[in-house]
């Protein structure tokens, strides 16, 4: 049995190392075909091609070096475009000079026509852009030449920033997308030639190794709570292994969200799966969804084995495995194959923070009956699904039975649940932070909808686009991804759910004020041992309530049921019952001397 386990571990580590190696194993060659495939605009393509001439056709063995070349090329193209198409300082000075006369300074657009009167492309471009960006200056009078110069310079700067870079060069979104697309298309070598072989050597071998390691646990003694040696384990008590794992996860998320151009080899590897499911190549989020689902499935098996004495845990784990595989992964991909909008039927705003983004709304509205149904379904979940289900079952129906973030936390994250901070201070931070994110999400969405319906993109001097961008980068990617999962080995498996998730905040408010759910404590049986608090992934000091005979009614409780499972004296039970009995008086049964409020 031990042999099987160790064999599994070796296979897993080998496969996982190979997976990591694939990241570095990439080779690149930029060709004209690649550029034709990736840059649609011919003049831009030519500009890029010209600047990339020095290394086109060269072979690169490092994604870092190759991406650096691409970045430099984009910069050069942009610089050149600016130099060619921008109105120069000398030209601005000329304009100022020609505006002055008779002690009066007046600007006129005719000066532009005069100065850039040529019919070549460059003069035409300068004339047109200045007229577009600076026509409001026509006929304006100025007190000093400096004043006019400042205004002209501002206009020219705007043209550089929003006009030239966009039309003749590459703006930052294009650069990000193209770096990724070019890197992916330029890639060649064993992974590109044999992706399926590599799927077997990395993913399939990892799964086999992990299962060989996990399955023998069934034979390691009778069912029951098996938390032996958790606090001696370098993986589970922020030891070297935990720190290493956390660092790996954080790095993974940073590449995924901010630098996908480096991870093209991994994406190429899962392309066959993507083609199989939706008939087209997958992007970084397909890779992410694929790995995510595998983690939940494999670690779900571990969870089921570990808690096999508890039917609640078994059913709950099967539920999160099902919802991740079917609802989050397969159904959206199949919808794409059927030419329908990508839609995760179990994701709910404001966790699904881009649900009301204009492109998402348009996609749904323009997809006929199914799209309208999806829109109605999503809004129905927000307005009816959340309050009704939380009223009957508590927020657990979502957080620990359905949600993808919860699913990962309850499976991959289970070994780290004891690392959550139980202090009163942490609770205070939690309440401020999570409700702040909820308010942020609401404000951000309100701005997005305002822009959607009115077409105005500014409110109170803030651009709704930059608000949504900030939310996406800091909350959607940074908090939920990098911190939310990357910090599993440091702060427990529910960092995002506890401190950040705006949907959890919403569910929690309903749970706290209008629900039949509570954790009941069993009379006077508590011995204050602390297992419940220790293994509460949400950092609730469960023992505080249990030892005073008080039901636990907390907005953050996700109802995972582990406190009840680890309790050695049968003190805790998750229950739905009439609302009136939720907030009981804290009295411990068994003492007839006096009924003391604890």
């Amino acid at each position: 049995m031990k042999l099987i386990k160790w064999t599994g571990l070796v296979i897993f580590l080998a496969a996982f190392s190979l997976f990591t190696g694939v990241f570095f194993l990439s080779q690149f060659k930029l060709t004209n075909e690649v550029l034709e495939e990736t840059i649609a605009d011919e003049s831009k393509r030519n500009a890029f091609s010209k600047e990339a001439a020095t290394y086109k056709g060269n072979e690169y063995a490092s994604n870092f070096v190759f991406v650096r070349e691409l970045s430099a090329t984009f910069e050069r193209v942009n610089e050149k475009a600016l130099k060619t198409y921008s109105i120069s300082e000398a030209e601005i000075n000329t304009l100022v000079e020609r505006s002055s006369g008779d002690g009066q300074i007046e600007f006129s657009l005719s000066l532009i026509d005069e100065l850039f009167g040529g019919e070549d492309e460059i003069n035409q471009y300068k004339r047109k852009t200045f007229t577009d960006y600076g026509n409001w200056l026509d006929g304006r009078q100025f007190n000093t030449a400096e004043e006019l110069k400042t205004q002209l310079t501002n206009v020219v700067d705007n043209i550089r920033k929003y006009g030239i870079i966009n039309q003749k060069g590459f703006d930052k979104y294009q650069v990000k997308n193209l770096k990724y697309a070019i890197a992916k298309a330029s890639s060649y070598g064993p992974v590109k030639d044999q992706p399926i072989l590599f799927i077997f050597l990395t993913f399939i071998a990892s799964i086999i190794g992990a299962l060989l390691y996990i399955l023998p646990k069934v034979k390691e003694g009778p069912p029951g709570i098996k938390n032996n040696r958790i606090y001696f384990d370098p993986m589970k008590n922020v030891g070297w292994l935990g720190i290493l794992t956390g660092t790996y996860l954080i790095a993974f998320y940073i590449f995924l969200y901010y630098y996908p151009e480096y991870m093209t080899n991994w994406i190429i590897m899962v392309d066959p799966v993507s083609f199989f499911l939706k008939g087209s190549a997958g992007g970084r989020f397909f890779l992410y969804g694929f790995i995510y689902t595998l983690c939940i499935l494999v670690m779900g098996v571990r969870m089921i084995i570990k808690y096999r004495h508890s039917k609640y845990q078994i059913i709950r784990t099967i539920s999160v495995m099902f919802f991740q595989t079917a609802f989050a992964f397969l159904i959206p991909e199949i919808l794409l194959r059927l030419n329908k909008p990508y839609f995760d039927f179990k994701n709910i705003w404001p966790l699904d923070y881009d649900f009301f983004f204009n492109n998402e709304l348009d996609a749904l509205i323009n997809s006929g009956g199914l799209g309208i149904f999806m829109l109605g379904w999503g809004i129905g979940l927000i307005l009816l699904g959340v309050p009704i289900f939380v009223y009957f079952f508590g927020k657990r129906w979502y957080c620990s039975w359905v949600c993808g973030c919860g699913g990962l936390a309850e499976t991959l994250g289970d070994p780290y649940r004891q690392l959550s901070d139980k202090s009163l201070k942490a609770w205070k931070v939690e309440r401020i932070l999570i409700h702040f994110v909820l308010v942020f999400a609401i404000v951000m969405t309100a701005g997005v909808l305002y822009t959607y319906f009115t077409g105005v993109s500014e409110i109170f001097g803030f651009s709704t686009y930059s608000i949504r961008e900030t939310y996406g980068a800091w909350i959607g990617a940074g908090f939920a991804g990098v911190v939310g999962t990357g910090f599993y080995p440091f702060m427990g498996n529910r960092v995002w759910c506890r401190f950040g998730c705006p949907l959890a905040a919403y569910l929690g408010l309903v749970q706290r004020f209008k629900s039949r759910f509570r954790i009941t404590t069993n009379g006077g049986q508590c011995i204050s041992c602390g297992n419940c608090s220790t293994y509460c992934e949400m950092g609730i000091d469960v023992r505080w309530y249990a030892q005073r005979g008080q039901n636990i009614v907390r907005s953050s409780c996700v109802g995972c049921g582990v406190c009840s499972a680890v309790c050695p004296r049968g003190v805790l039970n998750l229950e739905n019952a009439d609302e009136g009995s939720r907030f009981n008086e804290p009295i411990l049964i068994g003492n007839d001397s006096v009924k003391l409020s604890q």
Partner: protein
Amino acid sequence: MKKIVIIGNGISGITAARHIRKLSDHQITIISAETDHFFSRTALMYIYMGHMKYENTKPYEDWFWKKNRIDLLRAYVEKVDFNSKSLQLANGDTVPYDDLILATGSKSNKFGWPGQDLKGVQGLYNFQDLESMEEHTQGVDRAVVVGGGLIGVEMVEMLMSRNIKVTFLVREPSFWNIVLPPEESDLINRHILEHHVDLRLSTELKEILADDDGRARAVITNEGEEIKCQFVGLTVGVSPNVDFLRDSELELDRGILVNEYLETNIPNVYALGDCAQFRQPFPNRRPIEQVWYTGRMMGEAVSRTVCDIKTAYKPGIWFNSAKFFDIEYQTYGHVWSQLKENEDQFYWEHDSGKKCIKFVFDKNDRTLLGINTFGIRLRHEVFNRWLSEKRDVNFVLENLREANFDPEFFKRHEEEIVESYNAQHPENQVILKKGGLLSRIFA
């Protein structure tokens, strides 16, 4: 405002302090030589097993004591001078008091076995025992645990968690059968064996042998068998920790003698918890009860008396719980190891042999007297009510669904239990009250 000094920071002393603070503004000082802060003694095993760290076993955060103006003093009390009302500390200081509460707990028993003081031989009661066990089990691969009680089986479980092979010597013919009836005791015997413990029933320790370094190397049983080991756990009960009070005016027997108000023979001196011994034991109760719950209740009661609301300690319906490896145990009311003259019983055991439930009732009027449950969680509140209302066993079985406290989706056994009861008692048929899944969700 008076100065109240409490010796001992276990559950009894701490509960007293907390409730005194709720009731008054008296100055409160808790002295302990064991740890700086209150921790849950029942959780010691989990620290050794790696389920928790010491930090996790503290029921209150460290700021709690200052906030509630409870002074904590880490010191060892050597002597109490009851005349001058002051304590003599080992570090030479003296601490005066107006009221003194003795909550000094227990110490592990040793019965004069040869070799009982060798290195690697110890009991398990306090934090220092845990540290010693940690130190003396490094690199050990075989251990012997002596004594078939709750601490014994805990210690076996602890050692097994470190992959140490354990021989478990139990003097009685079945595990803990001075408390558990034969069926339940046998169920636990089987479970201990299922965990590959070398369980030796009806076997006593005769002697512990030393190696050249003065460390245990083997034990010899009363049958003359030598069992090699590098660690010996002696878990043969505990006695009140009162040696430092001997030869004083304080009246002692095995423990500190107290009346129902937890008052000793000296005014303004109280004793409670493990170290207290009632002059007049309560009906069906022992004079010294070394149980977490009773310690806590005594703390609740004494806090009022100290604050001039004189309150007798009046334990309610007996309850207790434990866990043997994977099997949880709860008991409500009285289930004796042998049925008494007026008692009858109904016992049900699940096919798995790992769950059972026993009802003891009065032969004549069928009033429920007590219940034991293994592997099924029951509601304390419900059984407390039924026992105080003196419900008969038929009523209890009819309403058994109401008492279940197992998590959702767990297999329920009420139907089987009632069926089995009806088969055994044809003259007393019970019809189980309904309660399906839906009615539970929408109750």
